[in-house]
C-alpha cells in the first residue's frame, strides 16, 4: 500500500472529523426543528377543539349553533390545512369546513367531560398518503344536546416545509464542510512547512559537507527534538567519515614504511656486486617486510570483516582459565626474555569464539609485555561479574595518560606517535580487541593510574545477544 503524505493524512482526518460532526449536528437540529413544529401544530389543534367545545356550550340549542356557525368556523380559519366538522347525535353534519377534503372519520369520540390533551390526537391518511392528525370530541349544548366536534389538520404542508428545510440544511452543511476541508488543508500545509524546510536542508547534505547542521529556529517545538536527533546523527556520521578518512591516511602512511624499506634496501644492494651472503640477507629482509605488509592487510581485513553483519562467530563453550593458561604459555618465552612474570588465575566457563578469544587476550598480553618493566609481573585473571565474564589484564608501568585512554582502541591510534613501532602494527592490535568484543556483544575498558597499574578489562556477556 502506498503511504499517504502527512498533509493528505491530516486533511483526511480533519475531513472525517468535520464531516461527522457537521452531519451529526445537522441531523440533531433537523430532528429538533421538526419536533417543535409538530408539537406546535398539535397544541393548536387541541386548543381549537377545547375552544370549540366551550363555544358550543354557550349555545342554547342546535338551531343556535347552526345559525352562528361562522363563529365556530372562524377559529380554524386562516390555515387552509385545517378542517372542522360538527355533527349531531344522529350523525347529520351541522357545520362543515373542510377545504382540502381531509378524511375525518376518527374512530374514537372523546367524552364531553374529558379534558382534551395532545395525546388524544389520532392519525389518518388522506388520498395522497399524507398524514392527517385530529380528534373527535363530544360537546354538550346548554339544552343537553350532544354534538361531536371534529378538528383535523393535514401535515402535508409541514412535511413539505421540513423537506425544504432539510434540503437547505444539507446544502449549507456541504458548503461548510467543503470550506472547512479546504481551510484545513491550507492550514495543515502551512503548519507542516517547517518539515519541508527541514527536508530541504537535509537534502543539501552530502559526504562533502557533513559539517552542516540543520536549523530549527523557526520550527515548532515538536521539531526541535527531531532536529537535534538528526544533528546528533550528522555529528556521528561526520565523526565516522573522518575516522575512515584518518584510517585511510594512516594505513597509506603505514604502508609507506615497509615499501620504502623494500625499495631502499634493494636499490642499495644493486648499486654494486655483493656476495651471495649479502644477497641472502637482503632477500630475507625483503620477506620480513612482505610479512609486515601481509600482517597489516590481514588486520585491516579482519577489522573490515568484523563490521559486516554477515560475520559468523564459531561459538563454543570452554574454560577461560585453561585458555588463559595456554595463552600465557604461548608468551612464556618472551616473558622470560623480558624477565617478566605472567600470573594467571581464576576459572569460568564461557560461550564464545575460541580463536577470537585467544586473539583478543593475546593482543592485550603482547601489549602488556611491551610496557611492563623488568622484574615485574603481569596479572591475567578471570572473574564472574553479574551478567558477564570479566577478563582482566593488569601490568605495572608508566601508565597511560587519561586523555589517551578512550582513544586507545581507535585504529592506528598510538599514544606516542614518534615511537609508533609499526613493525608491531600496534596501532591495530587494540582496535581488533574491541572488534572482537563488539562481535560478542561485550566491551573492553582501560583504566590506568599515572606511574601505576594499567588495567584492561574484557567483558563477555554470559547471555549472548
Amino acid at each position: 500500500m502506498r503511504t499517504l503524505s502527512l498533509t493528505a493524512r491530516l486533511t483526511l482526518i480533519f475531513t472525517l472529523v468535520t464531516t461527522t460532526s457537521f452531519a451529526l449536528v445537522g441531523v440533531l437540529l433537523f430532528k429538533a426543528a421538526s419536533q417543535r413544529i409538530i408539537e406546535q401544530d398539535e397544541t393548536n389543534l387541541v386548543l381549537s377543539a377545547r375552544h370549540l367545545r366551550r363555544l358550543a356550550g354557550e349555545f342554547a340549542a342546535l338551531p343556535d349553533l347552526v345559525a352562528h356557525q361562522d363563529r365556530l368556523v372562524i377559529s380554524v380559519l386562516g390555515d387552509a390545512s385545517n378542517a372542522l366538522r360538527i355533527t349531531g347525535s344522529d350523525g347529520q353534519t351541522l357545520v362543515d369546513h373542510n377545504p382540502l377534503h381531509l378524511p375525518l372519520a376518527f374512530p374514537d369520540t372523546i367524552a364531553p367531560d374529558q379534558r382534551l390533551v395532545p395525546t388524544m390526537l389520532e392519525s389518518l391518511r388522506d388520498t395522497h398518503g399524507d398524514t392527517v392528525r385530529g380528534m373527535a370530541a363530544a360537546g354538550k349544548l346548554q339544552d343537553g344536546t350532544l354534538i361531536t366536534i371534529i378538528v383535523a389538520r393535514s401535515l402535508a404542508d409541514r412535511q413539505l416545509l421540513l423537506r425544504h428545510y432539510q434540503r437547505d440544511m444539507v446544502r449549507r452543511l456541504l458548503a461548510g464542510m467543503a470550506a472547512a476541508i479546504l481551510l484545513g488543508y491550507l492550514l495543515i500545509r502551512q503548519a507542516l512547512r517547517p518539515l519541508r524546510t527541514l527536508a530541504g536542508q537535509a537534502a543539501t547534505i552530502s559526504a562533502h559537507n557533513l559539517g552542516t547542521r540543520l536549523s530549527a529556529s523557526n520550527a515548532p517545538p515538536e521539531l526541535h527534538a527531531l532536529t537535534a536527533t538528526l544533528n546528533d546523527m550528522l555529528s556521528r556520521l561526520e565523526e565516522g567519515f573522518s575516522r575512515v578518512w584518518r584510517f585511510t591516511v594512516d594505513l597509506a602512511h603505514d604502508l609507506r614504511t615497509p615499501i620504502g624499506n623494500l625499495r631502499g634496501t634493494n636499490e642499495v644492494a644493486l648499486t654494486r656486486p655483493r656476495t651471495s651472503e649479502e644477497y641472502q640477507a637482503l632477500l630475507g629482509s625483503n620477506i620480513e617486510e612482505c610479512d609486515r605488509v601481509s600482517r597489516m592487510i590481514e588486520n585491516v581485513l579482519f577489522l573490515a570483516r568484523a563490521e559486516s553483519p554477515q560475520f559468523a562467530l564459531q561459538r563454543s563453550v570452554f574454560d577461560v582459565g585453561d585458555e588463559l593458561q595456554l595463552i600465557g604459555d604461548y608468551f612464556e618465552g618472551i616473558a622470560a626474555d623480558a624477565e617478566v612474570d605472567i600470573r594467571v588465575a581464576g576459572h569460568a566457563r564461557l560461550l564464545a569464539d575460541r580463536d577470537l578469544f585467544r586473539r583478543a587476550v593475546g593482543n592485550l598480553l603482547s601489549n602488556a609485555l611491551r610496557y611492563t618493566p623488568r622484574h615485574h609481573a603481569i596479572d591475567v585473571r578471570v572473574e564472574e561479574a553479574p551478567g558477564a565474564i570479566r577478563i582482566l589484564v593488569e601490568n605495572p608501568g608508566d601508565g597511560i595518560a587519561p586523555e589517551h585512554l578512550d582513544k586507545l582502541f581507535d585504529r592506528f591510534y598510538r599514544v606516542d606517535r614518534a615511537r609508533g613501532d609499526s613493525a608491531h602494527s600496534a596501532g591495530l592490535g587494540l582496535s581488533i580487541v574491541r572488534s572482537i568484543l563488539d562481535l560478542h556483544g561485550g566491551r573492553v575498558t582501560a583504566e590506568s593510574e599515572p606511574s601505576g597499574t594499567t588495567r584492561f578489562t574484557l567483558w563477555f556477556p554470559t547471555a549472548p545477544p
Partner: protein
Amino acid sequence: MRLLVIEDEKKAGEYLKKGLEESGFTVDVVANGIDGLHQALEEDYDLLVLDVMLPGMDGWEVLRRLREKKDVPVLLLTAVDELEERVRGLELGGDDYLVKPFAFVELLARIRTLLRRGPPRDIEHMRIGDLEIDAVRRRVRRNGQRIDLTPREFSLLQLLARRRGEVLSRAQIASYVWDMNFDSDTNVVEVAIRRLRAKVDEGYGVKLIHTVRGMGYVLDDEREDA
C-alpha cells in the same frame, strides 16, 4: 611427483615452478582455465595447484569439471579469504585452500601433506644424527645425554623432527605447537626456537636447528647454516 600449476599471474607462475622444482617436483604451468582443465584431464598429475581467479574459465568451474572425471588432489589458491569461499571450494571437491599472499614454505607443507600417502612415518621413536626423541616417554637425548625440555619445547622439537628437512613458517609453528591460529605481531616463535636451540644445539659441533631467514625454521643434520 608431477604437479600442474594453473595460475594466470606470470610472475607467480614462474616462482611457483622454480620453487617447486627445486623442492624436487616436476612442474607444468598453465596460464588459463580452459588449457589447464584440458591438460589436467589429458595427462597424469599427482596434484594440482589451482588459482581461483582465472581468465576464460574460473577455478571453480575447472574444479567442477575435473571432478566429473578425476580424483587428483587439488590445492586451491585464492585472494579472497571468506568463509563462504572456503566452504564452496571444499564442497566442489577441493582438498585444501590457501589464501594469497601465502608463505612458500606453507604451500610446500600443504602439498607434501596432500601427497603423503599411507600412514605417517613411525614417530614414536625418532633419531636424527645423535639426537633421539622418545615420543611415548617424552624424553630427549643427544649423544646419550638427557636434555630437559618444557612440554612446549618438546612439542616444538617433535614437530621440527617429524618434518625434518622441511622449512616451517612461524605461523605454522604457532598453530601446531600452541594452537594459535592468528598471525601475532610478537616474536614468540623466534624466542621459543632460541631457547630450544640453547638446550639442543649449544655445545655440540653439529647444529640441528637452522633459521632460514624470512621463511622459518628447519631441523636438519646435513645442513650448513647460511
